[in-house]
């Protein structure tokens, strides 16, 4: 029998044993449509405990508190900090964009670490305010970015970082979101909401900001929304990305995602087209979307908790969010101008 220790160590088991006393206690502000994800994630998340729910609507808030098994349920962050400040270490903010700067500022000044859903704020300037406040208050800021934690993106990033694919050359994304999955309830900018996660993803995969941004859009007849945005990015060293974000019409039932990354030594193809089952019924056949699991939020929460405990920057940090928002603003400039925006050292300028 081989008695040598296994080469792989399950650190999560180690943490279960040793980290009970250092559990990160989180208050969730406006869990909204992410409530089910939080409930599912908390069944498996290590090192995190949700201890409070904050929400303006009482019935929704109480339902969330019940499902998350928390004792604290309050209407505002102010009430939370005043009445239960000692009971929490961090807040997860999912509230409307126009509340994020004030809520983040208040929580950071109270010494609470922050997990804020993408987009961090409505503008890059507001995002900078949040980042600076967190820095001054010496609290950790993680920006929730579900795309980075999805299985497609995780494996592509892992293989790219390992060097298997060589130097990244071209990133191609098609993201067709069904109307129900677009967070536009309280968006100040539909375009920003449509593209900001993909822009962050591009910066993450290339590990750089693009030097060139060009964007075009189109809409369905009679639509008042920007239904389709296509963003073309150029990076130093010849890298490029073409990102197509589409808000699906009501008649299209399910979303579609495709990510291709072409490297100098290899390529990765993550495509819903190749991850689809077939349903045959009578004389009709239809595709059945293959689910990718529900681990996204759990991974985010664990990364947040680890970053706080280890006193390090989270893998998706404030600087990343500022970068994505700055690119999104260049997109918004390029769209009506029909010109490319070029990076000039401290800002994008239309060429």
């Amino acid at each position, binding site marked *: 029998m081989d008695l040598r220790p296994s080469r792989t160590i399950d650190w999560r088991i180690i943490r279960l044993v040793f980290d009970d006393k250092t559990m990160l206690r989180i208050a969730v502000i406006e869990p909204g449509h992410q409530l089910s994800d939080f409930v599912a994630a908390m069944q498996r998340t290590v090192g995190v405990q949700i201890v409070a729910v904050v929400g303006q609507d009482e019935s929704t808030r109480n339902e969330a508190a019940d499902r998350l098994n928390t004792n604290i349920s309050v209407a505002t962050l102010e009430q939370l900090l005043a009445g239960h400040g000692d009971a929490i270490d961090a807040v997860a903010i999912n509230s409307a964009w126009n509340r994020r700067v004030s809520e983040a500022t208040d929580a950071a000044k109270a010494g609470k670490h922050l997990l804020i859903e993408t987009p961090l704020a409505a503008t890059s300037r507001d995002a900078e305010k949040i980042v600076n406040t967190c820095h001054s208050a010496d609290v950790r800021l993680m920006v929730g970015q579900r795309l980075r934690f999805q299985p497609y993106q995780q494996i592509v990033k892992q293989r790219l970082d390992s060097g298997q694919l060589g130097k990244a*050359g*071209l990133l191609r994304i098609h993201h067709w979101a069904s109307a129900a999955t677009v967070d536009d309830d309280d968006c100040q900018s539909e375009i920003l909401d449509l593209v900001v996660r993909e822009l962050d993803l591009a910066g993450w995969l290339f590990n750089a900001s693009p030097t060139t941004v060009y964007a075009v859009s189109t809409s369905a007849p009679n639509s008042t929304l920007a239904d389709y945005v296509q963003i073309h990015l150029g990076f130093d060293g010849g890298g490029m990305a073409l990102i197509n974000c589409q808000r699906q019409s009501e*008649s299209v039932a399910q979303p579609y995602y495709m990510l291709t990354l072409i490297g100098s030594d290899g*390529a990765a193809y993550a495509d819903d087209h190749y991850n689809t089952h077939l349903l045959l019924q009578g004389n009709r056949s239809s595709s059945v979307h293959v689910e990718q699991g529900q681990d996204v939020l759990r991974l985010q929460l664990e990364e947040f908790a680890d970053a706080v405990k280890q006193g390090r920057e989270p893998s998706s940090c404030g600087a990343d969010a500022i970068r994505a928002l700055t690119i999104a603003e260049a997109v918004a400039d390029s769209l009506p101008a029909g010109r490319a925006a070029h990076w000039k050292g401290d800002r994008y300028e239309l060429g």
Partner: protein
Amino acid sequence: MSLASVESTLPVAVLSVVKHSYVPNGVFIHHRFKPVVVADDPDQPEWVHQRNEKYAAEINVPYIQDVTRAVTEYEAKVAVISSAAERHCDLSVRAADAGLHVVQDKPMSTKLSECDRLVDAVERNDVKFLMWNRNCLPAVLQAKQAVERGEIGKLLSLHADFYFAKDAGPPIGSRKPGEPPLDWLESLKAAHVTGADGGVGQDPMGELEVEGIYPLAYLQMLCPEPVKRVFARTTSHFHQLNADNHVDDLASVTLEMADGTVGSLCLGRIGNASHPDIGEIKLHLIGSEGALVISEARPEVSIYYRGQPAAEFPHVRIANDNDWLLADDLVRAIDTDGDTILNARMSRAICATVHAAIESGKNGRAVEVSHLP
């Protein structure tokens, strides 16, 4: 020009066949076309004559080093041109001026002015022109039918991915200090044995220029609106040959059509290691009522076996009638005085789009595409 009598055989002169011979071979699949001669100009270098002669022997026809005499003596009705790219249009113009219908290999030309000369010659002589293409692959035709039936409503955007998983000599960065840059023509001549010599000629050409016509022809067939403006990124990312000759092997293009439809193209010669088959080739179409994702390779059958050569594609395309359908398209155009699936003007529009994209890749700006009136 008078209409050809129905079911008559069409004698074909192959004018220069220095690249892969798939274009003339594709034409000869159709029973209406019959090879009668291979011909070229006498001032061509010896390697050109050798390849022409070899092909003539393969198809059992004479090789004549005089284009005009060959066309006249053998009473050719159709010319098939697969020369070096910079000679494409000149040979095609001479064939059209001699009253021959023309089938030409891609790219149309390395110069837009040559394309214009060819459009003029084809229209002036009232002959048919077919740029060889892949528009009759079963998956592409299926996409066309779905769009025409209105299954996705009004087309809003359309996208092509066209990656060829082929190497092109040594990888980028492999040239040692002091070594001379790789010679384009000599390298492409050497690539003939692998069939990766589509860009053979004096003028170096990037992947966008060599292969761009295929995906752009898909998009043009699906959305006939002219491309008004392009924005492109181009780079040499894989191959020393491309880097040494300052031409792209990876490109992405934003396309803006005249009616507001948006398109895009991603294309590259991405290396053997990057795909098990010829490469990832896909179409994504978005309409007002739905969307369509098409894999160009389908239908295919997967075959794996012990001792399988590394260079053999494990996924075998089936039901592919592209060659016969293209040849038949030309037959129909000749018989009915109709138009071909990719005529001279359409080919010229694609060439103009490619040239605008190359310019955009160099200057970092959106570039208007110059179309004929």
